[in-house]
């Protein structure tokens, strides 16, 4: 048998995989494999040895069992929109792409849950449940492309997670395929189970604990009343103070997002132009929702007052659903619009205490200026979850070094302010180097030990999340004592 276009005969492993999924769903040619070398963060590149795309749960199980029998490491991947290099597979590793496992198995309206395969696209799940008055609340900016399986692996956030909680708060149960090919059920669709929260352990494990084959998600009623406000500021600092004012007043908006000028301009130049004022130093996008229209209006008015007091130049309310949709599309596609600034981009994902936002932002712009770099900020201000984007041209090696140095400095600033190294993008490959900054060797060793409960041979998504050298240090320490 020959793969469709390969010049040489397929490897024995490719042949065995093809026997399970069909020859056209195994990719062995270099040209096909290089398209999987990156995720949404193109600063990391790894070309997998083989790519396999199972089309059913049974095929997936058979693939993993085959790889277990042959002791071959593998990496599960969804749509590849992650931003930490988490879904990359290097040499000697098979990439299992789950996009074809995209069936919504069941929607249970009465119990407000849905059972989905890992490759279901986030926005498609919400589209399917909306006619029932329900939606899947976590809404990462990439929701039109990213998959629920990937959301589970990364414990994805999104603008509306400020009020509704992140992915972990919306996963009821999981069927998980472990690296050895065995299936385990975690959690219960009925709600709480006794014992430790294993669903909570699995969600956010970045593909280190196994592959979710069936995911039971919580569905949330679509709010009856919504108000969306756009406030613009002439300085970043006052915008940051606006955020603090809202939080200090005890108001929990559904979403509270900030974008700075360079980001505003990139969006306004794109097809997703939302009418953000181009001359503003920053805009805040605030959404208030609830069941009672009067209460929502009253709270939105209170927010508008707070923002004006904090120094907003104007506060505008979306007059229609179409306008609201435009305001949100602009925000959610902002990351993609950064290509208008420069051909390469790194995005950071740090969290700082909300009260520290104005100071940290100022420091970040200072760092960028010192290194002569363009930094754009678009982020979940309500959570203090920053996403500084640095635009640059990677063909200039000196520039690339400056970007690396500035990134590291930005990260140390956030940590020094009492923050941490990732809010929602995960550690993956990209933040491995920062892990020792916030965890001591013993904590990292504990993480490794937990991972080995699920995957003793460390065959799923090897080399991610926990820096190996740190663990080795820890292991030698443990032996010495």
């Amino acid at each position: 048998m020959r793969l469709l276009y390969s010049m040489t005969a397929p490897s024995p492993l490719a042949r065995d995989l093809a026997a399970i999924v069909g020859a056209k769903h195994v990719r062995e040619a270099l040209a096909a494999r290089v398209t999987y070398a990156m995720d949404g963060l193109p600063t990391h590149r790894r070309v997998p040895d083989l790519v396999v795309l199972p089309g059913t749960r049974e095929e997936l199980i058979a693939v993993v069992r085959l790889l277990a029998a042959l002791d071959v490491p593998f990496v599960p991947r969804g749509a590849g929109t992650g931003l930490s290099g988490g879904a990359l597979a290097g040499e000697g590793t098979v990439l299992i792409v789950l996009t074809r496992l995209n069936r919504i198995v069941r929607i249970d309206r009465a119990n407000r849950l849905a059972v989905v395969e890992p490759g279901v696209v986030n926005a498609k799940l919400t589209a399917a449940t909306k006619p029932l008055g329900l939606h899947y609340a976590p809404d990462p900016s990439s929701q039109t492309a990213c998959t629920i399986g990937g959301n589970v692996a990364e414990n994805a956030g999104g603008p509306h997670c400020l009020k509704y909680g992140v992915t972990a708060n919306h996963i009821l149960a999981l069927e998980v395929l472990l690296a050895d090919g065995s299936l385990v059920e975690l959690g219960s669709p009925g709600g709480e189970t006794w014992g430790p929260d294993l669903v909570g352990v699995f969600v956010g494990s970045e593909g280190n604990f196994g592959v979710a084959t069936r995911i039971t998600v919580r569905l949330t009623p679509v709010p009856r009343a919504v108000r969306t406000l756009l406030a613009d500021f002439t300085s970043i600092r006052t915008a940051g103070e606006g955020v603090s004012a809202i939080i200090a007043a005890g108001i929990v908006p559904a979403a509270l997002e900030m974008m700075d000028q360079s980001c505003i301009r990139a969006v306004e130049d794109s097809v997703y132009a939302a009418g953000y004022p181009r001359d503003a130093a920053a805009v805040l996008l605030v959404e208030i929702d609830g069941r009672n229209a009067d209460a929502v209006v009253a709270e939105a008015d209170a927010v508008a007052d707070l923002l004006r007091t904090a120094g907003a130049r104007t506060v505008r309310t979306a007059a229609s659903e179409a306008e609201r949709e435009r305001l949100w599309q602009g925000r959610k596609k902002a990351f993609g619009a950064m290509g208008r600034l420069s051909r390469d981009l790194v995005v950071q994902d740090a969290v700082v205490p909300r009260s520290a936002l104005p100071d940290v932002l100022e420091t970040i712009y200072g760092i960028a200026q010192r290194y002569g770099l363009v930094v754009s900020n678009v982020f979940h201000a309500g959570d203090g979850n920053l996403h500084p984007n640095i635009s640059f041209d990677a063909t200039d090696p000196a520039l690339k070094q400056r970007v690396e140095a500035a990134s590291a400095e930005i990260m140390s600033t956030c940590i020094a302010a009492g923050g941490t190294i990732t809010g929602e993008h995960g550690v993956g490959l990209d933040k491995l180097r920062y892990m020792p900054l916030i965890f001591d060797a013993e904590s990292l060793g504990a993480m490794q030990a937990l991972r080995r409960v699920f995957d003793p041979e460390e065959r799923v998504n090897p080399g991610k999340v926990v820096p190996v050298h740190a663990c080795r240090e820890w292991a030698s320490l443990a032996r010495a004592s």
Partner: protein
Amino acid sequence: MREGKEGRGGFEGLDACVHCGFCLQACPTFLATGDEADSPRGRIELMRALERGDLTASDPALAYHLDRCLGCRGCEPVCPSGVQYGIGLEAARQRIAEARGVSRLARLALWALTSPKVSRVVYWFARGFRATGIPRRLAGWGRLRFAMGMLAATQGGEMRTKARKVLSPPSPALLFRGCVQQGLFSHVHDATVRTLGVNGYQVGEVKGQVCCGALHAHAGLLDEARALARVNVAAFGEGDEPIVVNSAGCGALMKEYGHLLCHEQGERFGARVRDVTELLAGDAMRGPIGGAPLDMHVAYDPPCHLLHAQGVAVPPLRLFAAIPLLELVSVPGAAECCGSAGLFTLLEPEMSRAVLAAKIERLRETAPQVVATGNPGCQMQIGAGLAAAGVATRVRHPVELLDDAYRAAGRYE
């Protein structure tokens, strides 16, 4: 080779891609296979590797995945960074065509369908065969039977009408006739002339015009496309009359003649090109003069080269709005490609049918009486798919419907 701003032959159009992946779900081939190598983002990686020299144009896997791109450009309007995918694709395809040549089947098809002398005979035979009714009966999913369905789908309405004199003083417009459109869809040209006549246009003929070159450009034969473009630019002269096109694929390329030829004359030509629905809808989007009621359910299927490549979304809807009782039914995913894509349906039948299948299934569920679409390839592809699936829905060009409504209103008497 096409000279870009930085002299990189079109590849510079891809620089803005930051790999966000927001294009994935807008790509019909990615939806069909779930394979990154069949996605816009993956193909951009291939094109970049080709430009860098990391992969060669003769790499069979690279060509395989780039060949499988429909060129529908559905990824462009969703791209936040405005990546010029279509321009990059043409550049890459030209490199591939130079490296391995164009397939014999593509050559044969181009020769039979676009060369003036040969195609006249081919279309004459095709029309004669179509009139026997045999193609309609043979329509099916197999390669040959699908082609039969495509031919059957080119059949126009039965009515033959001479246009009444136009309102005076008429505005002049010049009709672009094209190759397939002229050979198999001359009834759409007639409807174009008549409906524009009712709306105050005197449509003139232009001698010496040839195929627009779109099929050549998509196959990577940019030089041949340029040669055809030059003939058309010369034939249509330097006047300022609008050039009316009723085939979305032709219109898309002709609007880009300036870019293709890299000269101002081409630019001016491109600026004159209008889709027939744009002229009928008018600059103020008021829509054409109203027709008699047609009591039918119509699903509008926007051709990719009209919606994505030309950005013409509203004008066709203004045509339907001018027909009382005509009810537009919304079909989910109507804006997704049908899989026709010029010669694609012939060269990549497996992917083409996979992309078409989803559309046919949704049309079966919504069951409109007519699918309206303004591109010959789409008309044939969807028509053949419907015939193969045994769905009674007919496929027609939007101007044909307006033409029927005008005839019923007595505007041609």
